């Protein structure tokens, strides 16, 4: 027996106070297995101890929300007896250590969260943030992460339809890999994790358990011998082929009425899944570790409980249905083992070789996990940068070319062409636009999906940045014609023990909350990733927002491409030329400063609802929201997507042209329509600012006398940057 010394306790990341709580709960010293269980259950990753207090403040309700945060994923009603189930999750640290396997297992994990609830996954998205393009590790990380995401999603046969990818030196030592999965289920066939019914069998399915991913900190403890390094890789290897079989087998079993509760094994494997199932259902569990399928010999209870082997699930079955279930899993050539039974003791009892090797009360452990009110300091507001403080460039055309070929704007085709984005035969809007749109199989409905965040805004002002991230997701869905319904989030921050970082977190949460409320765009699931810091250098605060919306009929969907010559181009929303924290200021002037553009949520809502109605009524087929790089970049993107030029008349607003073209004022859209005058009149009636700024046609993008660039040249610059970086 390993003695529980202060060093062992510390190696498990438990504080003295936490250990005292353990002693109080147990009324005795824990053994090593029990200590390991406490340590993973109470880790930041599983317990959300630093963030819980603030997450509770997020708006999570709307009439269409079926299930908000608290389950494996969030669920919304999309009509006709169908539900959309989705969530985003981070795999930042593993992807930095081993980009390919880190990214694959990230995708595998989020997929399981979705199908464990009864949904067939229909789309994957990913939000990626890398360090500076010229940092020595960046190319290796980009190529490994992208190949890993592709490797898993492609093999599973689930289209990866969208995401984002940006570069900034603050991620040099901490890249972000956030994976999102969206699934569809019948509302009558949703599965939850609450285990009920003493005497019901607990069943393990999927892959065998090996010594994968047993925590780094715990590796130091005394029980392990010299070759532990060799035996216990902290990096897991993904097996998408097995996951595909697990997916099909689970969905097949879900057609029967065998399953009472089901839960994937993700972080902290068997430990987390059994405790969550038991705690959610208010039961006890007896787990026979001899019945856990094992890939290696001589595994200890500690190792089995903490292993993070992938592609495993745990289920509670209706008694007497074991053989039906076994037949299905055997058909799919997967492990199937009745490994335990539910009890009414409220305790988790682990046995091995006929002996009790662990005995813990479930509720105190799962529910009484620590919750901290970490000190935080409000983030200082970045000063406002006035238009006059940004000098006019010599050559506006050159500026546009620079922006279009900048890491932030440059085409990410090199990435999404490695993803199978068409499999399943319902991708009606492929990557490259505002939101991806996937038809709900066998119906006319479409799901519009996007992932967004502008970290430089969050850095300058977490509150406005948090608002903006939500608003931009809402706008992207709107621009495709979708009605935005709900979001998932992935909160990526530095060390929460630092009041400054905690202040960024609080600011972002508050900003997000305000936007969610104003836009009726609640949070239904999410994930928190703290400690994204190397040598005291934190990343820019990055609350990735994954948004989902619905189109009633995919026939009335808009895309960003100009379609025909001679259409009027209408700018919707108010333009003030806000340049603080803009891409222009950073890229052209090298200045990372200034307050970000304020988000007027009432205007956001009014303008967006107006545009969405036009699309729904079939009046608008071409629509793009304005974001990084403002009007100039949006125009260029619409030209490049359609291979059609545009002539913009210039403007009469009194703003310097560079502020008009590259300011990043929010709540704006560009649309192309046959009858722009009628549209503007309509906008006036609705109280929405709108102005005709030009007309489509020709081979060049021309702005007054100041700029005229062939669309083909823009395309070359836009498409060229990433392949060149990666060559």
């Amino acid at each position, binding site marked *: 027996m390993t003695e529980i010394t202060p060093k062992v306790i510390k190696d498990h990341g438990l504080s003295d106070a936490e250990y005292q709580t353990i002693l109080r709960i147990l009324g005795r010293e824990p053994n090593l297995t029990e200590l390991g269980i406490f340590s993973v259950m109470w880790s930041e990753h599983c317990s959300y101890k630093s963030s819980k207090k603030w997450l509770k403040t997020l708006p999570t309700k709307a009439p269409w929300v079926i299930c908000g945060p608290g389950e494996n994923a969030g669920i919304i009603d999309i009509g006709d007896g169908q539900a959309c189930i989705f969530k985003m999750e981070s795999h930042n640290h593993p992807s930095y250590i081993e980009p390919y396997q880190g990214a694959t297992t990230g995708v595998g994990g989020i997929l399981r969260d979705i199908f464990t609830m009864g949904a067939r996954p229909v789309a994957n998205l990913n939000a990626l943030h890398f360090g500076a393009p010229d940092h020595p590790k960046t190319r290796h990380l980009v190529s490994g992460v992208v*190949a890993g995401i592709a490797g898993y999603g492609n093999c599973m*046969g689930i289209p990866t339809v969208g995401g984002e990818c940006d570069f900034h030196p603050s991620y040099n030592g901490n890249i972000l890999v956030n994976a999102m999965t969206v699934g569809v289920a019948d509302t009558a066939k949703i599965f939850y994790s609450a285990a009920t019914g003493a005497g019901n069998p607990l069943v393990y399915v999927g892959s065998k358990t090996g010594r994968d991913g047993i925590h780094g900190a715990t590796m130091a403890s005394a029980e392990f011998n010299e070759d532990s390094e060799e035996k216990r890789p902290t990096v897991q290897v993904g097996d998408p*082929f097995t996951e*595909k079989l697990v997916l099909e087998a689970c969905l097949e079993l879900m057609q029967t009425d065998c399953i009472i509760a089901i839960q994937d094994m993700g972080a902290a494997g068997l430990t987390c899944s059994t405790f969550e199932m038991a705690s959610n259902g208010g039961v006890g569990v007896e787990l026979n570790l001899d019945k856990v399928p094992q890939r290696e010999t001589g595994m200890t209870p500690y190792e089995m409980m903490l292993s993070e082997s992938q592609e495993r699930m745990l289920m509670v079955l209706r008694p007497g249905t074991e053989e039906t279930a076994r037949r299905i899993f055997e058909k799919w050539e997967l492990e199937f083992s009745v490994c335990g039974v539910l009890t009414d003791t409220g305790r988790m009892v682990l046995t091995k070789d006929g002996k009790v090797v662990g005995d813990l009360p479930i509720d105190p452990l799962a529910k009484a996990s620590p919750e901290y009110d970490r000190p935080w300091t409000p983030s200082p507001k970045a000063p406002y940068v006035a238009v006059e403080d940004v000098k006019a460039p010599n050559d506006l055309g050159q500026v546009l070319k620079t922006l279009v070929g900048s890491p932030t704007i440059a085409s990410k085709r090199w990435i999404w*062409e490695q993803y199978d984005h*068409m*499999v399943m*035969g319902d*991708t009606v809007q492929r990557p490259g636009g505002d939101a991806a749109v996937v038809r709900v199989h066998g119906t006319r409905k479409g799901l519009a999906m996007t992932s967004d965040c502008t970290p430089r805004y969050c850095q300058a002002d977490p509150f406005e940045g948090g608002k903006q991230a939500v608003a931009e997701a809402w706008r992207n869905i709107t621009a495709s014609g979708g009605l935005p319904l709900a979001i998932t989030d992935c909160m990526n921050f530095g060390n929460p023990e630092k009041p400054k970082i905690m202040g960024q977190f609080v600011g972002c949460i508050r900003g997000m909350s305000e936007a969610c409320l104003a836009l009726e765009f609640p949070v239904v699931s999410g994930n928190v990733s703290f400690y994204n810091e190397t040598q005291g250098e934190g990343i820019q605060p990055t609350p990735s927002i994954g948004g989902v919306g619905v189109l009633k009929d995919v026939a009335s969907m808009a895309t960003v491409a100009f379609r025909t010559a001679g259409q009027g181009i209408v700018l919707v929303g108010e333009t003030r030329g806000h340049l603080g924290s803009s891409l222009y200021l950073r890229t052209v002037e090298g200045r990372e400063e200034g307050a970000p553009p304020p988000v007027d949520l009432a205007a956001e809502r009014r303008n967006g609802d107006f545009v969405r109605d036009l699309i729904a009524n079939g009046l608008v087929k071409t629509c793009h929201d304005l974001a990084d790089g403002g009007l100039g970049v949006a125009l260029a993107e619409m030209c490049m997507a359609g291979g059609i030029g545009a002539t913009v008349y210039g403007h009469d607003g009194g703003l310097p042209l560079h502020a008009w073209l590259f300011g990043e004022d929010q709540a704006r859209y560009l649309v192309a329509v046959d009858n722009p005058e009628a549209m503007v009149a309509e906008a006036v009636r609705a109280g929405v600012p709108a102005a005709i700024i030009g007309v489509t046609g020709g081979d060049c993008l021309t702005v007054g006398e100041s700029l005229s660039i062939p669309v083909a040249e823009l395309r070359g610059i836009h498409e060229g940057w990433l392949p060149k970086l990666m060559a």
Partner: protein
Amino acid sequence: MRAAVIVFPGSNCDRDVMVALQQSMGRAPHMVWHRETGMPEVDLIVVPGGFSYGDYLRSGAMAAHSPIMKEVVRRANAGVAVLGICNGFQILTEAGLLPGVLMRNAGLKFICRDVGLRVETADSLFTRPYRKGQVVRFPIAHNDGNYFADEATLKRLEDGDRIAFRYASSDGKTDAAANPNGSLRNIAGILNERRNVLGLMPHPERLADPELGGTDGRPMFDGLVKAFAA
């Protein structure tokens, strides 16, 4: 027409091709699990795309030894039409129904995008609805589409008018710029000697619905249905 789609562990375009067949046939094909040793009488057998056995070892290698493949080979030899798409093409080469192999893409990356294809022969059940020399647009989505065969085999294929499709630019040039994966002589699809087996890397089923962005794949399925109209 009566059709069957073979489903292997890891197949993932089985539903896509079922939808395309159903659209052309007006009814669903039989879905046949790889462990079966027999299947109903059919006019067409489709070996679909995906990652059978995860593409582990070599793509298509393990699926080629699935129990059902004996039956597929038997039927093919008896003249039943067999269509292998993407992973299906790889499986048919591993099973010996088609010559050559599909190696790792020259760029070593998975590629998913629309490509141009020049129809090299209209003389087959599968390509009859197209014109020889016509350029069509199909999507590709593969890691291992780099067709390789020895000189003698290539010559036999060419002499026998057995190359069904080559990668081509929109104006029909079959040069290196139009070749996405390094395939020898831009080969995208080939026929067996008897012309009843077609293997191709691109996915006709992915562009058989205008909402997905095109319909160049649809004539292949409509043509098969017409050919087998009772």
